[in-house]
């Protein structure tokens, strides 16, 4: 089984970290994975995106022309990547910043008010973790406990209180 996905949003929304966490979780589960970010000037204040592939066999191309899942943190991301979804794919939208409906009706859509939910936790920065929680629970591509482990690895001793906040955010969204 090979799953291909796009994570996209504004620079600063933690999109790259989200994608890396999925790839790291895949490694913990003994799976193959690739992570490829957009890079260069487009990263400076523009739209950032990364592609992540998780598979149980070696991955040849790290590039994607069709996807199983798209996680869009803002409108340009949805417009750019919705067309790449395979029929039956999963589209996760940050409803807080996307006030336009997705066009496709052959996919599964989840609208999540990630920024508002993050505000309730007292820190809008963790909107990406709320979306990540939704991603994991809707697609099952990696396990929840793998992500929790990765969060602990990313936010180690010195940043331990950040780990708690991120885990709280990760656990927030339930379908």
């Amino acid at each position, binding site marked *: 089984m090979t799953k291909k996905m796009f994570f996209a949003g504004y620079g600063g929304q933690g999109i790259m970290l989200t994608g*890396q966490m999925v*790839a*790291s979780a*895949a*490694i*913990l589960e*003994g*799976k*193959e*994975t*690739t*992570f*490829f*970010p957009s*890079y*260069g*000037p487009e990263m400076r204040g523009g739209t950032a995106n990364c592609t992540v592939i998780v598979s149980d066999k070696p991955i*040849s*191309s*790290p*590039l994607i*022309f069709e996807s199983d899942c798209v996680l869009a943190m803002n409108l340009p991301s949805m417009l750019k990547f919705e067309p790449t979804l395979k029929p039956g794919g999963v589209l996760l939208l940050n409803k807080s910043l996307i006030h336009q409906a997705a066009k496709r009706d052959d996919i599964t859509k989840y609208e999540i008010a990630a920024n508002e939910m993050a505000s309730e936790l007292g820190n809008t920065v963790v909107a990406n973790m709320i979306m990540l929680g939704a991603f994991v629970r809707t697609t099952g591509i990696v396990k929840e406990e793998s992500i929790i482990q990765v969060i602990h690895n990313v936010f180690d001793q010195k940043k331990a209180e950040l780990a708690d906040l991120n885990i709280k955010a990760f656990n927030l969204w339930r379908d």
Partner: protein
Amino acid sequence: MSNTKKVLMKGNEAFAEAAILGGCRYYFGYPITPQNEIPEYMSRVLPKRGGHFIQAESEISAINMAYGAGAAGGRVFITSSSPGIALMQEGMSFLCSAEVPCVILTVSRCGPGIGGIQPGQADYFQATRGGGNGDYKIPVFAPSTVQEGADLVYESMALADKYQNPILIFTDGLLGQMMEPVALPEPVVDIKSTDIREHKPWALTGYWDDDKKRNTVISLRLQPERLEEHIHKLFARYEQAEKELTRVETVGIEDADVVLVAFGTMARIVKEAIDMLAAQGIKAGLIRPISLWPFPYATFDKLTDKTKVVISAELSMGQMIQDVKLGVKDRFPVKLLNRTGGMIPTSLEITERTAAILKEIGG
């Protein structure tokens, strides 16, 4: 197979770490996208591991610092990207002439000129033919995964010493920027500065006492007889490199209708396309040169008469295709399947274009 011993690493950082594990203690860099993570990593990590990092004022200086540290017997790693490699080529010729080891890695982008920063392979000639002057060769390895890149950098630290010649690792923006699980090799035993002359009797260390011979590292040889003799010595070594360093991966070439030749990033996409072609009933094979020089010409002799066409798949206007033609020796038609300027074909595009080429030649 369990991947749990592996860590997720960005290509550029994995290459830097592999160099350190391979014994690199001297790194000289200059900022250029898409390789900036390497000087950043080295500036942060190398001093803590007993090494030295200098941010050079240009790529020209970086390779000359490499020449100095290499001539002094240190293990040196330097990196850049296409236009920066162009500036380094004066130094590459000089290092070959003076027999100074060094591992150079390019995270290739797109030219000509300042071009673009997306992945490209239009520096194939730059890497394999070289822009420096004179009779010299540089072994070139082109990894297609982060793991393979890390392994090749690690191994090349020792190979450069063995051949007393620079080794070039040819990667591109995709490999440098992407992250993959990597199992890192064991660190080699560090050689102290004071012990260098025991390992490298030719190195500049100061002769300390009269027991040791004075050493010079030179490039100028004004007498044609001596220069010719020296070049023959270098080329005897290059002949040995052709025997020992030719590396290639093949996939299903024995009974393929069509054989694609691709390296690095392009080879990964071609591999996916081969699976897609199989689903259409087309048997496609892959020759992936891992060493671009020495090029695996002999591998083409293994192709059978079942093959109808050989396709050179490149992220350039067609450079490797010259070597492919030398390998094919007119046995099969050779076609180019390419994108350039930073455009990367999808596996779907490669599948469709391969099928179209087969149809065109009546396969």
